[in-house]
């Protein structure tokens, strides 16, 4: 499960050091409970440079560039802490959710697994499972077991997609199923 956690305070720079969220955690006999990776999001100083570019090799990623942290917990929960704030449910939230949920359906499509089954199997939270099953029951969409082949000769292609979100300080949640009909020959 991917959780996006906007940090509610500005990241402070102290010299070359950047204060990360508090990742102090209990350490079990098996080792640390978290693997934390610092990354830079949307920072022009670390824009990719071609290997043959004159600047290649001269733009190291310093700690000042780091503005986000990826915390991978022992229970396979992955939390992205980002200092990039936004107003309301703007692009970053929606696109992050789009990528997370879309990848999930690409995986299930390739594996021939029903997306709902995959969600339910990998969603430990009872509230989330309740939401997902309720939305699918409302839609009465059929289980999806195999990747469809786009048939350009078909008059109409139909499909349904499912996605779930958690959002807001009060942990609001919603699940949504959308059905579409596509006419390949429509102008």
């Amino acid at each position, binding site marked *: 499960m991917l959780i996006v956690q906007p940090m509610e305070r500005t990241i402070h720079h102290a010299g070359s050091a950047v204060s990360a969220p508090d990742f102090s955690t209990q350490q079990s006999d098996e080792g640390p409970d978290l693997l934390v990776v610092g990354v830079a999001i949307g920072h022009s100083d670390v824009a990719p440079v071609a290997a043959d570019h004159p600047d290649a090799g001269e733009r190291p990623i310093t700690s000042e560039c780091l503005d986000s942290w990826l915390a991978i917990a022992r229970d396979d929960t992955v939390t992205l802490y980002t200092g990039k704030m936004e107003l309301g449910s703007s692009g970053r939230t*929606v696109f992050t959710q789009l990528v997370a949920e879309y990848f999930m*359906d690409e995986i299930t499509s390739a594996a021939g697994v029903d997306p709902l089954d995959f969600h339910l199997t990998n969603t430990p939270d009872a509230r989330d499972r309740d939401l997902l099953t309720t939305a699918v029951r409302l839609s009465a969409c059929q289980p999806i077991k195999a990747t469809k082949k786009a048939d350009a000769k078909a008059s109409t292609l139909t499909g349904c997609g499912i996605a779930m979100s958690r959002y*807001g300080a009060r942990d609001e949640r919603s699940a949504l199923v959308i059905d579409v009909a*596509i006419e390949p020959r429509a102008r």
Partner: protein
Amino acid sequence: MTLTRACSAFDCSRLRNIKELVNQIERALVRGLSRAGHQQASLDRENVTRFNWNDARILTFAELPPVRMHLIPRPDRPWGSLGDAGTVATAAALANAVLDATGKHCGHAPLDPNSVKAII
């Protein structure tokens, strides 16, 4: 591409004004579908470089799919709100529906008719 149905389930915390809540959820759905299917902005690595509200089309009533909604009350939880939660998952659900219908990946947003036609 036609949106034929949208089914939403919401975890609502405590319920007070159901009529207003339903209105809010429907507004969020319109906003999310409009963004996912029609609105486009250009960005560089740091800023928005082109966005024109005149081009930010909002779905009309005729384009809206029938909506079915189910509210799950959680009286044991604190008071909350739902406006934005209804928007966030919309683009992902639409992209997954297109993937299911066509069997092809559309790595482009918005998912407008031209983008969908290009992958078929």
